[in-house]
Every structure is written in C-alpha cells, then in structure tokens.
C-alpha cells in the first residue's frame, strides 16, 4: 500500500528530535484524530533554515511526510519553505494512498506554523502565506471527520 520511499522515510526517518535553540516551532494535529506533528526550525540572520527537527505521533504516512518535509526545507530560505505544498510532499514520496493525503497537508501546515512562530517571536507581522488557520479549525477538518 505504501511506496518504497514512504517505507524508507518511515523506517529511517530523517531529522528526528528536538532543537534546544529553535527559533520557530510549529505543532499541528491532535491526538484524537491520531496524528500530531511538531517541527523545530533554526533560522539564521539571512532567514535560511540551517537546521530542522521533527517529532510526530501518527501512522506510517504521518512519520514519512514529516521526515521528507524536513529534508525539503533544510537549507532553504523561509520564503522558499512557505512555498512547500502538500502536493510536492506527496510527489516526493512517490505518492500516498488517498486516505493518507491528509498527512501531507499536516506536514505542509506544520512547516508554515513553525515559520509563523518565528515571525511572532520576532514581533514581526506573520505573512499570509504562513497562516494555515485562524485557530478555530483543527486537524480533524482536514480528515473530513469529527
């Protein structure tokens, strides 16, 4: 059911862990729905993501999408990171089963939420591209169930 890429990122996830000196942290999802992703970013003065780590509670696809998303944004500018789409995550994994596509949405939102946190910590206005929700929705809305 999963591609070899998904299995690879599930069994050997890249960038697992935490960053003590992260200056942008984003968490999305909730335990009730069965997946939570937390992404830590270390962003330098040139707004380049020099390091990234993640922690994820969830299924094989949730872990694999988190892993590949961290690889896709590492070394990139935060502006580039904000252009990461769930579609690109799915393509990079050579596809996901339809019921697992929401995991890629979660990965995209975890990155955006972490970047938004970076802007907030600096007291800067959060760009529209980094806003994933107004706080009244949760991951369940993407799952299509409550």
């Amino acid at each position: 059911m999963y591609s070899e890429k998904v299995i690879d990122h599930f069994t050997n996830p890249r960038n697992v862990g935490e960053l003590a000196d992260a200056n942008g942290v984003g968490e999305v999802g909730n335990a009730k729905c069965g997946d939570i992703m937390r992404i830590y970013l270390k962003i330098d003065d040139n707004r380049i993501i020099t390091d990234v780590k993640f922690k994820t509670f969830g299924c094989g696809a949730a872990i694999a999408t988190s892993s590949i998303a961290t690889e896709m944004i590492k070394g990139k500018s935060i502006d580039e990171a904000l252009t990461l789409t769930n579609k690109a995550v799915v393509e990079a994994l050579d596809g996901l089963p339809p019921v697992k596509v929401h995991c890629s949405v979660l990965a995209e939102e975890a990155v955006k939420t972490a970047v938004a946190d970076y802007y907030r910590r600096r007291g800067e206005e959060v760009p529209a591209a980094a806003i994933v929700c107004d706080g009244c929705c949760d991951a369940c809305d993407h799952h299509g169930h409550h």
Partner: protein
Amino acid sequence: MLHALESLERDGYEVTYVDVNENGVIDPADVEKAIRPDTILIAIMMANNEIGTIQPIAEIAAIGKQHGVTTFTDAVQAVGNTPVNVADLGVDMLSFSGHKIHAPKGIGVLYIRTGTRVRSLIDGGGQERGRRGGTENVAFAVGLAKALEIATARLPEMARVKAMRDRLMQGLLDKIPYSRVNGDTEKRLDGNLNIGFEFVEGESLLMWLDASGICASTGSACNSASLEPSHVLLSIGVPHERAHGSLRFTLSHENTEEDVDYILATLPAIVQRLRDMSPLYDSSMARIKD
C-alpha cells in the same frame, strides 16, 4: 450483527441496543430491563472479535425464556476457541461461519432449537425442512463437519494457549510502561489479547511488527478506510487517543512459547522507538517530572 439489526430497522422493526460495561461485558439485568411486552428477539454476539469478551449467554437465554422471547447468538468467534454447547447455553438459535475454523469458505451453520418457528430464508425447494430452498452443497457440509470435529478435538489445547496469552499479556504490561489491557481479563477468549500503548499510533506499530515478522491488528483509525477508530474500543470507554495505539494479538494452538518470547523481545523496543519521536510522549513525561 449491527448491520443485520440496521436492516431490520429499515424494515420497520424497533431495536433497543443494550450497552456493555467498561470491560465490554453485558449485564443480563440490563437485558431484562430492556425487554418490552412486544419484544420478540434477543440477539447477542457470544464472543467479541476485537476484545475477545465472552458474554453471559446462558443467563441471558434464561431471561429470554422466562419472558417468552427468542434468544439468538452469533457464536462465530467462539466456536473452536471455547466450548459451545447449545444445551448448556439454552439459546433458541445459534449461528457460526465455517471459515473461522478452516472449513471451506461459503458455508456456515444456523442451529434452530426444536419448536422455534423460523420463516423460510429461501423459498422454493423443500430442502432443509423447507427453511432454505436449494440443493445442498454436500462437499462443503462434509468439510465443515470435519473442520468442526478437528477444532473441537483441539479445545483441550486452549489451556496451553491461555497460558501463553497470559504470559504475553503480563510480559508486555511489565516491560512497557503506560500500557493497558482492553476488555475483561477473565471473561475472555483464551487466545485474544487487546492491549493499548499510550503516546503511539497503531498503524506505525503494525508496520514495525510486520517488518519483524509479527502479524497483529489495530483498532487505530489510521488503519481503516473510514479513519474512525474501533467502535468496540470506543463503546467500552477507551478514549480515542488510546484506541489509536491499541493492538490485537490472536494466539492459537499453532503458536509456540518461542513466539511469545520473540514478541516480548521485539515489541518493547518498537514502542520505545516510536515514543521517542512522539510529541505526546515528551509532553507527558515533562508534566510527570514537574
């Protein structure tokens, strides 16, 4: 069972659903309370497929008899795993399917106590005393009878299966903190273990188990097309979070003590590996430290 009852509801029958307790067991007194003057049938699963709970069928059938209500039980998970005797149970009807005991797929059994009136399932031929028209599949019937004979002869081995299951259960509870057994530990099929591990998700557990050559199943939503966790686990009050991290192991006479040793040696490290990357685990551990 639920789908058959829903079908009756669509035909205009009224169905009362009796709740189970937190171990998944039905209280016969609750069944008695639910009986109305116009109740015609009590239908209950003898053993649950997910948490292995064995229901007090004999007590419930006695209540049915007292109130003149027919009692039916679906014993598909029980036959071959625990003694099933229609005289002891006192039920009016009992069904099971052949494939669960390695009989050919496509044949099952419906026991009907003498004196219980049942409308013909398929009209036409006079086969099976007019209750199910159509030429009998003799080869399948012979196969099922033989499978039943073999399964019944093996029932004494279930004591060994139960001992293995109990060792697996205790071993996992001892080795893995924040784990809990779902369902009743006594009124349970000998080979069934359903156990939940906090802070991790079932499908990722299954993927690691599968890679290690261990076959189990999960109540997690992430392993189903519906994305809904097991309704059985939710109905016994298991929170969504824990239902997601639940595994079911089914042991049989084909399993060995070495299999139990292997699971006990393999699963704790898998759970820990996934907990180490779980944001739920680190926040909970941080709270405990505080």
